[in-house]
């Protein structure tokens, strides 16, 4: 498409919109009638070969909610100075932090939430994708293939759970088999290990839960599963143990620059300096680029909702069962499916909805119902009755629908790891290696030669899970430390010892939900009905605060001691 053609088509979508080329990027300005027009224009602009799409189109009266910023305000970071500042502690930011910790540098990670990994990185499928649906030549494809292969070693070093349980891409129409040559051809450019094709009969034998009228499947043994927040937390713990500083509840609000170089970074906890800034801010990565004066892309948030089923539904599959994602290609999702999680539950989803909200985690019953409807066509025994919870996350998609991993265009001391949508979890370890290399180059240009960190330890302290030991080992463990024998969370069988460990590991956070993500307490079928008070009591003891001051997610669990409320009422 030529620029002229683009201009014409934009005008025909919205007469009040206009396109221009500024500094190699397509810039869209003006007004649209609806958000879908905004998206349509953005997608069109991406078809023009440029350095990126800056879509500033707006719809009157349509405004997204402001970014969540913690109410904490202090001078914790005021006038400090670091070699490297990583913005965002998602899986990408934490993987980068760990790579940076291999060097003797002062590195800080700033994260606006109360814990690491709270946004997209804890709100996804947890799949380590084989990458079959990715187009050769994209950065997504490159990083996915490399990231996938790094997971075996990473899980050994960091002690997170990882299983290559394979995935089935089910053919629901006989003509799907005609695509076979395409898949085989794609493999030449996008190496995928061990791919196999199964006939209808073989599929029925291997995955009995799949509808009998399905026409066969492609099997991808390199597909795996992890618990995504366990991965993120493990990376952060390791980076922290190797000397990286984490500043939580810290939001980047602005940046000051001079002569194409960022000179300082302002947050709600003070303004500080950093030689290199790394943008790993997920759905806000274009805003961060803007603050740095280096915006050449636009995030259009895409929300995905998922349902989690009771372990009882785990019999439906021990792998991943997905439909061939034909209809979804234009939506850039993997079409979703049934994913057996690392903990034995079943995940159904995700959906894909374009939204103006960058962090709206709300769910709705109609979306959940549509997920069940869609996927029960592949697996008829799927039922909403076993649904124990649901959640949603937001993908940081750009109009180019590809990752951005590069140095700044106009700013000399920034590296972007932006637009990391799916399969970003899979790709993150590979992205981190490249980002680290780019950051070291920038430092070198500034005259800073980073030396290796000799005391770097790639391993994390071991996680103890008594319920996974055999009976004799478990008994021996409890004899040594009785806290591992006292069960607090009955559904997930989590002991007091594991909760204590979660509260004393590196980078522990005294919050109900942080403890939950570190050891699964309150995560089972009763969803904390029984163990919430007991877990809160352990946090209050460990943190030395009254139970009424224990936090749950961004708020307080309880609001005050009973006695206080009674006294107040007496005064009235």
């Amino acid at each position, binding site marked *: 498409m030529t620029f002229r053609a683009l201009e014409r088509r934009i005008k025909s979508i919205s007469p009040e919109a206009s396109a221009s080329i500024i500094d190699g990027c397509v810039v869209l300005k003006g007004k649209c009638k609806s958000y879908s027009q905004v998206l349509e224009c953005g997608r069109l602009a991406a078809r023009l070969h440029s350095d990126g799409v800056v879509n500033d189109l707006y719809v009157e009266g349509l405004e997204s909610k402001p970014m969540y910023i913690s109410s904490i305000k202090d001078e914790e970071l005021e006038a400090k100075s670091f070699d490297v500042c990583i913005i965002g502690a998602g899986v990408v930011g934490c993987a980068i932090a760990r790579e940076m910790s291999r060097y003797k540098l002062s590195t800080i990670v700033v994260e606006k939430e109360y814990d690491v990994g709270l946004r997209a990185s804890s709100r996804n499928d947890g799949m380590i994708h084989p990458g079959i649906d990715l187009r050769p030549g994209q950065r997504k494809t490159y990083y996915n293939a490399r990231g996938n292969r790094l997971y075996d070693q990473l899980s050994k070093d960091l002690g997170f759970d990882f299983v290559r349980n394979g995935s089935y891409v089910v053919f629901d129409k006989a003509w799907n088999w005609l695509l076979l040559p395409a898949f085989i051809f794609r493999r030449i450019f996008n190496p995928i290990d061990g791919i196999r094709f199964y006939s209808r009969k073989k599929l029925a034998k291997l995955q009995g839960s799949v509808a009998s009228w399905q026409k066969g499947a492609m099997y991808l043994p390199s597909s795996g599963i992890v618990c995504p927040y366990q991965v993120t937390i493990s990376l952060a713990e390791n980076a922290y143990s190797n000397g990286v500083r984490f500043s939580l509840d810290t939001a980047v609000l602005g940046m000051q620059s001079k002569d194409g170089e960022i000179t300082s970074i302002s947050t709600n906890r003070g303004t500080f300096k950093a030689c290199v800034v790394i943008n790993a801010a997920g759905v806000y990565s274009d805003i961060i680029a803007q603050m740095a004066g280096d915006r050449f892309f636009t995030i259009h948030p895409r929300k995905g909702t998922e349902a989690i089923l009771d372990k009882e539904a785990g019999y439906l599959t021990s792998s991943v069962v997905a439909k061939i994602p034909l209809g979804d290609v234009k939506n850039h999702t993997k079409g979703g499916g049934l994913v057996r999680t690392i903990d034995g539950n079943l995940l159904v989803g995700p959906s894909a909805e374009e939204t103006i909200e960058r962090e709206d985690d709300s769910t709705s019953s109609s979306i959940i119902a549509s997920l069940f409807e869609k996927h029960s066509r592949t697996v008829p025994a799927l039922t909403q009755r076993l649904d124990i919870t649901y959640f949603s996350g937001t993908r940081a998609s750009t109009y180019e629908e590809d990752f951005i991993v590069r140095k700044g265009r106009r700013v000399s001391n920034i590296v972007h790891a932006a637009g990391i949508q799916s399969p970003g979890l899979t790709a993150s370890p590979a992205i981190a290696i490249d980002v680290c290399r780019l950051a070291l180059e920038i430092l070198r240009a500034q005259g800073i030669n980073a030396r290796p960190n000799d005391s770097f330890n790639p391993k994390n302290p071991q996680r103890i899970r008594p319920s996974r030991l055999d009976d004799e080992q478990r*008994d021996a463990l409890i004899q040594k430390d009785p806290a591992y024998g006292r069960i607090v969370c009955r559904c997930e069988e989590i002991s007091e010892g594991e909760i204590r460990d979660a509260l004393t590991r590196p980078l522990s956070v005294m919050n109900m939900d942080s403890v939950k993500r570190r050891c699964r307490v309150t995560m089972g079928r009763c969803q904390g009905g029984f163990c919430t008070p007991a877990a809160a009591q352990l946090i209050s003891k460990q943190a030395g605060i009254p139970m009424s001051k224990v936090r749950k997610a961004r708020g307080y669990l309880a609001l005050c001691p009973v006695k206080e409320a009674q006294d107040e009422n007496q005064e009235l």
Partner: protein
Amino acid sequence: MRTRSFDVAVIGSGPAGMAAAISASDEGSSVVIIDREGRSGGVLKQCVHDGFGLERFHKRLSGPWYAQIESDEVSRRPIEVHQDTFASRIEKTPSGFSIFCSSPRGFERIDCAALIMATGCRERTSKQIAIHGTRPAGIFNAGTAQNMVNIHGILPGRKAVILGSGDIGLIMARRLSLEGCQVIGVYEAKSEPSGLARNIHQCLDDYHIPLYLGTTVTRCIGIERLEAVEVAKTDSSMHPIAGTEQIVSCDTLVISVGLIAENELIKPLGVKMDKATSAPVTDQYSMTSINGLFCTGNCRVVFDLVDTVSKTSMICGRRASQIARKASAGPAVQVVSCTDLAFVCPQVIRMPAGKVQLHFRPKKVLRDYMLTASQDGKIIGQKYYSVLRPAQMEDIEISADESQAEIRLEGESR
């Protein structure tokens, strides 16, 4: 690994487990009780209100008091009580069952000839009833809120909406307002309250707490702490009606929308389940489809009154002791319910039975109702009810002796 052996093992020391242990011990068996918590009493420990024991002791006792009476009885007998002990897994053995338990003393195995499950129930969660919106702090199950207030002395919030008019919801409405939390109202999706009439009077009317029938909570709003909920009117199938939504500001949502029997431990043994109770099929002695495996109290069926729990559990304990000593279970006949009833428990009767109580709930309010039990065309029990409500569990006595034919329930409104 330590291994111990008993005639009868009881998992759970709530009222059901304690009553079963007492009667099994009195029948001459060696008995052990295993409980996850540090103190006996189960859920009664946190029910500080009164109303327990009216039928059995003709007194209005509090939950902890009732539990104390039972645990005193337990301690007068040669019953071993293992507290802080969690039953992690159960295996069937040729001579009975092995229970694998975790406690601060170690991981141990307890073998028994008969096993009584008295593990109670858990509450349905907000997710299971499809409350959507955001996930701020301030959303609790009623039992969790009750535990926080009555055991830990912390108030979940200052301005609460209660969803569900079952007894636990009603009791929590009163409890919270007594402790200084403003209760905006109790919302109930059905057109009838689910709790007992006396609780509506004593817990809501006396405290001027409004009850909104045919209304449910559809959405939570809030970023840090709950700021408001969206409520909507419901149609006859309890689905929210679009266009009737209203925003109610509050900082706490207490959910009391039903209990689920806890039987996860024995499901892997292949015990036969009843869809109507979502619990194992049991006979009049609370024995499941597996010989020697019993299931009593609220994990068998959710009872209204603890008195009934104790009474049925005593019958269970006695029988478990006999079965442990190789008594034969006797042939089973099926109880066939009628369409008006939500469930009937027991679902099978072992013959010869003599006089047996059947417990049931109607699906909806029925007036002027006659229920008849018959076997082979012969009437073996009949009872007239001026009114039957889903909120109230009822029973009917039958006497079944000779016939091996199934027992049929039939009813009609007159």
